[in-house]
């Protein structure tokens, strides 16, 4: 028995060394710290200041390992210039399973360090933690790999995958509010029906608090059916005893989860969950279901995010103290049935969330920091406090009272209000998704196997480093295992593919792309943007932002579908692009208002500014609007068109958006500077000098169009590019801009010098000049455009 270990010389010798004598023969037994060979080396001795003398020293080399010598990799008389392996030794114990720094095979203490072993510590020989319920037990990479491959083989032969299940708010919802017990004991209570299905247990370490647990509707069927396709694991941030109690409720005979339970005690990190903790080698066959995606920073591809189950309204995840604070947008509007009194409950739900919701990024960052004991203690105390508070505050009771109170206030006769409803259907959709994933996985796997059989080489990903071991007996081939993460991605990507989504009121601060909801939408194939432009197909609006500026902008764009946030959430939950018609946000009033406002502004502006005197400064969205307002009669239409530029100018000034205002004045400046340039707008030359005579507009337009520009939206496209350019230009020190203007006039210094003087992140000074010209170009173009528009309009009138 025994494993052969090749031992290296290490870096501490005074290279080059000459081997003078080998003291052992292959086959000899070697003890630890026994001298195995002798060597000599030359070195410089400093005799006195600045004078050296070469000397030769002789030394012994001690073996760091014990066992039987297999072979020498060096020979007597050899000069070794650099560290290299010198012998292969057959060890009695490879120390590849260790429990708390003790070899689990031979009982030897692994922390022992001496001169000989200092470079290769025994504790490093096993460092993979792959047992669910113990952190002390570690194994070597080789063992981890062989274990996992045999597990994968087993799953493949059973045609299963692994499923990691979160507990809190994914499959169950727990609370410690004793109101539940009271309601449960009182059949006359309106909530009795919902509450009587809860189960309860107590934990001694939380001072005999009674935990009330509500399983998600259909849970037992779900688990039973899913366990046909998946091997189930529990991964929760609750304590061990909590998890075991919950599992005892949802899996009383331990047939579903067995002992595959991992809790925060064993997780290794207090903030993040990691699949590598249970599957250190390959996560190809693992799917996760969890209501929080931010706790899986490293395993997003494998995650199916579940809509959090909130049965006890206003009570979040009782183990959430150990997780980074939930970002607000991740919380869906879990509004109860829409009777008039829904509002206070909804409010309470949001209020119950942690009041501070810092950046998700920050939380993730904090996750990576090493957790210390103190923090853990702190969090545990915090949790205890929270639980205690829940017991004292009894939020459920309050909410119910509030519900009833509101009714009284409205003078209605008291009726039964049901606070808790049991109408969650998430598990049905979830089961479908899991079935789909399972089907897709094995379809792909079977296809690859057929290909392999028919002689075609399977497609390996480049850079695949895994040890592949084809087995010919069981019809199981690990080398053909597809990555379930890819499959999930493929399934998801097609859902919202091709949609461009902007949001209003869903993300507070920061860019939408990086927000939780944005990332999810992107995972489902949608493109997420911040600004409302003609490119977007959907504007997703939160209930509180139905009259926001973005919605107004979107109303002007006919192609945008304005939907409530539940559309997006439902799409993400059901993995289908749902018909929007049920989710449309009513914008009729806004549309009317918009038209009204437009008309008024038009009237106000008509007298003041003469059309020809004002170079066009129009908002393309305004132009687009022309065709949008169906209910407008011809008269209005004409008026509008006539006053187009002025009105839009006014629009900008009245707009609350500071930037826009700035933009307006900005371009005014430019204009005046240009005026001093000779006032010849139309003969202004573009950078490339492409503008000649009548064909002016055409090349400019095509040049500006984004390469990826959409069908007919030249205007808005240009608008976005232009707006961006202007924004960038605006963000520069104004001195530079004037500098650039001077350049335009032909008197300024070389632009290249400017760029070195004023480094600006993102672009260099050379661009500044271009940008400023771009501004003018744009203005000029607007002018041109307007003339076009006018012509077109006159034509239209003629047609009439």
């Amino acid at each position, binding site marked *: 028995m025994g494993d052969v270990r090749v031992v290296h010389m290490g870096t501490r010798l005074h290279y080059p060394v000459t081997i003078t004598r080998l003291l052992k023969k292959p086959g000899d037994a070697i003890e630890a710290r026994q001298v195995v060979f002798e060597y000599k080396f030359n070195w410089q001795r400093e005799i006195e200041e600045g004078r050296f003398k070469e000397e030769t020293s002789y030394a012994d080399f001690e073996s760091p390992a014990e066992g039987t010598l297999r072979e020498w990799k060096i020979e007597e008389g050899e000069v070794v210039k650099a560290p290299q392996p010198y012998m292969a030794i057959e060890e009695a114990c490879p120390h590849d399973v260790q429990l708390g720094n003790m070899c689990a095979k031979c009982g030897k203490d692994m922390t022992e360090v001496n001169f000989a072993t200092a470079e290769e510590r025994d504790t490093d020989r096993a460092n993979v933690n792959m047992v669910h319920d113990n952190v002390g037990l570690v194994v070597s990479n080789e063992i981890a790999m062989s274990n996992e491959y045999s597990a994968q083989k087993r799953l493949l032969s059973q045609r299963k995958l692994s499923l990691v299940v979160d507990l809190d708010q994914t499959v169950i919802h727990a609370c410690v509010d004793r109101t539940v017990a009271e309601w449960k004991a009182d059949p006359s209570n309106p909530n009795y029906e919902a509450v009587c299905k809860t189960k309860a247990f107590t934990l001694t370490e939380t001072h005999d608090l009674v935990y009330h647990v509500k399983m998600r509707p259909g849970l037992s069927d779900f688990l039973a059916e899913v366990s046909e396709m998946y091997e189930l694991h529990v991964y929760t941030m609750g304590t061990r005893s909590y998890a075991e109690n919950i599992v005892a409720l949802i899996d009383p005979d331990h*047939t579903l989860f067995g002992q595959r339970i991992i809790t925060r005690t064993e997780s290794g990190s207090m903030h993040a969950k990691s699949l590598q903790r249970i599957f250190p080698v390959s996560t190809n066959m693992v799917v996760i279901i969890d209501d929080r995606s931010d706790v899986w920073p490293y395993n997003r591809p494998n995650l199916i995010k579940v809509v959090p189950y909130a049965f006890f309204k206003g009570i979040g995840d009782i183990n959430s103290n150990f997780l980074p604070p939930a970002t607000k947008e991740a919380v869906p509007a879990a509004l109860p049935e829409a009777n008039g009194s829904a509002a206070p409950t909804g409010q309470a739900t949001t209020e119950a969330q942690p009041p501070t919701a810092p950046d998700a990024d920050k939380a993730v960052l904090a996750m990576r920091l090493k957790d210390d004991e103190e923090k853990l203690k702190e969090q545990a105390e915090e949790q205890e406090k929270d639980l205690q508070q829940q017991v004292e505050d009894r939020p459920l009771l309050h909410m119910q009272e509030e519900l009833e109170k509101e009714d009284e206030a409205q003078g209605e006769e008291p009726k039964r209000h049901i606070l808790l409803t049991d109408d969650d259907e998430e598990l049905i959709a979830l089961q479908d998704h899991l079935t789909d994933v399972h089907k897709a996985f094995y379809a792909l796997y079977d296809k690859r196997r057929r290909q392999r059989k028919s002689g075609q080489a399977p497609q390996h990903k480049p850079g695949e480093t895994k040890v592949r071991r084809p087995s010919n007996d069981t019809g199981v081939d690990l080398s053909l295992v597809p990555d379930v993460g890819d499959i999930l991605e493929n399934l998801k990507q097609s859902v919202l593919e091709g949609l461009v989504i902007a949001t209003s009121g869903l993300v507070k601060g920061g860019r939408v792309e990086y927000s939780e909801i944005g990332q999810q939408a992107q995972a489902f194939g949608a493109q997420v943007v911040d600004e409302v432009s003609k490119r977007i197909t959907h504007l997703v609006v939160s209930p509180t932002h139905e009259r926001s500026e973005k919605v107004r902008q979107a109303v002007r764009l006919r192609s945008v579908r304005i939907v409530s946030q539940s559309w997006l959430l439902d799409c993400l939950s059901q993995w289908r692009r749902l018909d929007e018609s049920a989710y449309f946000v009513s914008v009729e009033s806004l549309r009317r208002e918009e038209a009204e406002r437009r008309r008024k502004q038009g009237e106000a502006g008509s007298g003041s500014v003469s059309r020809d005197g004002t170079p066009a400064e129009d908002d393309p969205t305004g132009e687009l609007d022309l065709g949008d307002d169906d209910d407008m009669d011809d008269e209005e239409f004409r008026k509008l068109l006539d006053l187009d530029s002025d009105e839009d100018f006014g629009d900008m000034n009245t707009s609350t958006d500071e930037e826009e205002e700035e933009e307006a004045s900005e371009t005014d400046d430019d204009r005046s500077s240009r005026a001093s340039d000779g006032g010849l707008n139309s003969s202004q030359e573009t950078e490339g000098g492409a503008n000649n005579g009548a064909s002016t507009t055409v090349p400019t337009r095509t040049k500006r169009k984004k390469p990826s520009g959409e069908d007919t939206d030249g205007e808005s496209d240009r608008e976005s590019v232009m707006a961006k350019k202007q924004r960038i230009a605006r963000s520069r020190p104004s001195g530079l801009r004037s500098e650039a203007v001077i350049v335009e006039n032909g008197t300024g210094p070389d632009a290249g010098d400017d760029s070195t003087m004023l480094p600006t992140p993102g672009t260099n000074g050379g661009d500044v000049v271009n940008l400023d010209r771009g501004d003018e170009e744009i203005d000029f173009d607007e002018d041109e455009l307007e003339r076009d528009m006018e012509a077109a309009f006159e034509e239209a009138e003629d047609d009439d």
Partner: protein
Amino acid sequence: MFFLRNMERRVTLHPSFFCKDAHDLVIDNLLRDVEGSCSGNYYIISIMDTFDISEGRILPGTGMAEFTVGYRAVVWRPFKGETVDGIVVSVNPQGFFAQVGPLKLFVSSHLIPDDIRWDPNATPAQFTNNEDINITPGSSVRVKILGTRSEVGEMWAIGSIKEDYLGALQDASETFGGAALDED
């Protein structure tokens, strides 16, 4: 192995407990603090009696009184090579954990006889030879300790059942015969 051992400990008492029953309180404190604790090398199972409670000395600064108490206690120290009985608490592909009184013990799958294999398909998952032996949580096992390790307040051990007369115990009456007690 169990030992009867004479030991000494300093117990402090808060001034509010200074009364004629102070010595009883000291003993109460001692029992509460010491019994069931692990000193690193051994577990203190039970205090038999106390034989010497010193005069209390007031600690400067705090006003607490400190008593030096001599006591005799039953301690249990697991030794390398000792055979003990335990109850399996969890099993995994690498082996199984058993609880031997207060001591947590791990038996690696390498130290389980070759005919007893890990069977992940069984519910619950278990080590079994597909005949009469199956090791699942709750099974009683007789294990030989191969090594112990201790840290402050905690000890653990690794063991083997790969020898004659070791392994799963068939008869429940065999289990808590106090095999450890009988030794010596």
